[in-house]
């Protein structure tokens, strides 16, 4: 009897319910889209910030210094130790990592800094480099190298030219695969494969520093750095302050901005649905009067109406959430180029919110408890 009444009520007033359903569905869609967006945006932005390059550096603690033209430069450490430590730790957060061995070699009788590294990681570690030519794909490839734009200009190197590097009495040759425009010290350097530079400098298995790009919030990066430091007690592991500090502050600001705007819209949408439901409830006064005159108790009558709007809220909420998840998916594609996958926790949250709001909207019906049926039916 109860549910038949509810069902009849829903069927009986399709026109007016249309407005209410529309309000609930679009409200739920906006809310779920924004919640999905808000939860996904931090993840997306921390990934965007990785174009800033490495945020953790491993270097030897101040030990025996090497000498370059009379000045102290940081000392060396064995490549093996660092790689072993990196392999122990979970690699999911590390978006790129590369060892570096810097030597000062001569090419065309000009002194130039040669960085021995894994050229395949450079592309991920330094995503903002403007590269003319091609990246070196394999870290074992000793025949190719990348040169900074100033090096290329000074030595008049073009793509494909051979470059002869001399270090003491040894020499090595590589082909210029790409010219790097970085807007920094890298413009004055040559990037070759680590093994080639190690054999050129006769420093087998040695590296100067290792750079890591770790994705995640400031806390995740700090935790990772701490665990790495514990695994490598003899070396210095430090987050690059320029990157981590600025990133943390900026992310916080952007997050706060979006959260506060989303909150505003959430309140507005909830109010809108509430208003529509309240209006719908008031239109039901006549039905209440009729039921009351037929002997229905007010609590039962209100129960029927609450069930009615509850069903409305649940159905509209469900439709809206799915719509909203699709909207967030599209927004992710539009803004970040990758989709924002829907979060499961948004579904129950949105539906629950819609049910609560619709029920709250139907509450004015309770005020009808002391109204005499005759007055309502007369139309006052």
């Amino acid at each position, binding site marked *: 009897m109860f549910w038949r009444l509810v069902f009849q009520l829903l069927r009986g007033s399709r026109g*007016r319910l249309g*407005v209410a359903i529309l309000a609930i569905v*679009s409200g739920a869609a*906006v809310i779920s*889209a924004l919640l999905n967006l808000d939860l996904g*945006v931090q993840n997306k*932005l921390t990934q*965007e*910030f990785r174009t*800033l*390059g490495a945020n953790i550096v491993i270097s030897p603690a*101040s030990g025996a210094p090497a000498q*370059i*033209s*009379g*000045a*102290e*430069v*940081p000392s060396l450490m064995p490549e093996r130790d660092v790689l072993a430590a990196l392999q122990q730790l979970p690699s999911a957060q590390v978006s790129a990592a590369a060892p570096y061995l810097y030597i*000062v070699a001569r090419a065309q009788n000009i*002194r*130039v800094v040669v960085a021995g590294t894994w050229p395949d990681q450079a592309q991920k570690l330094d995503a*903002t480099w*403007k590269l003319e030519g091609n990246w070196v794909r394999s870290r074992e490839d000793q025949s190719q190298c990348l040169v900074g734009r*100033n*090096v290329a200009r000074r030595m008049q190197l073009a793509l494909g030219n051979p470059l002869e590097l001399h270090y003491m009495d040894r020499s090595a040759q590589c082909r210029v695969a790409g010219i790097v*425009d*970085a*807007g*920094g*010290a890298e*413009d*004055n*350097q040559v990037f070759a494969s680590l093994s080639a530079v190690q054999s050129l400098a006769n420093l087998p298995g040695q590296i100067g520093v290792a750079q890591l790009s770790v994705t995640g919030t400031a806390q995740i990066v700090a935790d990772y750095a701490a665990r790495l430091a514990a695994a490598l007690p003899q070396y210095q592991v430090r987050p*690059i*302050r*320029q*990157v981590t*500090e*600025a990133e943390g*502050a*900026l992310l916080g*600001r952007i997050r706060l*901005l*979006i959260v*506060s*705007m989303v909150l*505003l*819209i959430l*309140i*507005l*949408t909830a*109010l*809108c649905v509430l*208003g529509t439901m309240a*209006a719908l409830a008031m239109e039901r006064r*006549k039905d209440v009067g009729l039921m009351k005159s037929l002997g229905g108790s007010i609590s039962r009558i209100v129960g029927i109406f609450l069930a009615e709007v509850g069903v409305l809220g649940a159905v509209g909420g469900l439709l809206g959430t799915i719509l909203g998840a699709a909207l967030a998916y599209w*927004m992710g594609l539009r*803004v*970040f180029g990758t989709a924002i996958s829907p979060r499961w926790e948004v579904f129950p949250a949105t539906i629950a919110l819609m049910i609560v709001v619709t029920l709250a909207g139907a509450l004015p019906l309770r005020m009808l408890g002391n109204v005499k049926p005759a007055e309502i039916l007369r139309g006052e």
Partner: protein
Amino acid sequence: MFARLLGESFARNPRRKVLTAAALVIGMAVATATLTIALEVGDRLAREFRSLGANLLVTPESDTLPVEIGGVDYRPVDEGAYLNEADLGKLKTIFWRHNILGFTPFLDVPAYVSETGGATTLIGTWYKHEVPVPDGTKFETGASATHPWWKVQGRWFQDGADECVVGAGLAEKYPAAFAIGKTIHLTQNQVSGDGRPLVVTGIISTGDAEDNAVLLPLPVAQEISGHPGKFRQLFVSALTKPADALAERGERAQTDKNIQLTPTEYDRWFCSPYISSIGFQIRTVLPGTDVHAIRRVAETEGRILTRVGTLLWIVTLAALGAAALAIAATSATTVLERRAEIGVMKALGASNALVGGIFLAEQVLLAIAGGAIGFFVGAGLARFLGESVFGTPAAPRLILFPVVLALAAVIAMIGSLVPLRRAAHFRPAVILRGE
């Protein structure tokens, strides 16, 4: 007659009008607040991004290759080209001078510390330095503006004083020689005995090459290197706008003779604070230099600013949508609730046009009043949001006032049009019977 009907309607049922007006006020307040923030966020965030430090690097054009590892130039002082410190004031005379937030010259000098007998690198720079600008004013700048993440334990050296700040790595290695308050002696070559005495005022930890160097005032470094008034590198922190197609073309036109900007394009490029146009303007006042964007910083900033901008516009759109929904729903409900009234009017011979006109006029009047109140509430909201997110309140945009009013009126009208059209088909008798 029309005006009297309208007046009566407002006077007779103020409660219902208040509800509609409340929806309008809240909807338009949210719309105003989000629009204000969205309009302002680009500038605000660009300023926040300056916490990443400098985004332009100025070096001598005809330089030898710097032997630079980890940010320290190991070239001997007699090699390579230098720039003139005296020219730096000109940076504040370019077209986008107000967008130059700070600049810091650097001079790296290989030297020896008598106390440890070890070789080290001296980095001559400014921390807070007053630069005379050609127009007679002073501009205070230095590493405090371009390297905000540098932290010093103790205090920074006074500008031009015989003081220095020692890198944390060095201080850890020679704790006896580099304690705060000690005096160290610096020499250019190992032979000469006494050297230049400097008092250590602080220990710096930058997380970079400076941790193994000694930072000292630029004039002192110039004196030790024997190059008075010179420096090697200039870091500039400038407020910029994310690069777009025009910025790319403008940049490429500098080097590529095949690309020619039309005069209008050139003007638009020159008068936009793109990093390439600011770089171009710096090169004009500092001839013989190579000005280059630090791509790591500039690109990241551009990408994130563009993305957050798009994101906020989408959120603003959602806000506008939600506001429209709220207003349209309330307007529709008002019309539906007053069907009996419409029935009476029509039974007394009112034409559909008159009934519609009265309702629309009512809605528009309400929309204007609600929109105006909503604008001021929203401006307050934006102020509060700006204050809590960026630390400075967002200024109200008067340009939004007419926009918000028009928006409110249009939405309210659209919201009531649909039910009004349906009301036009009602037969008065049916409505009056209460069906």
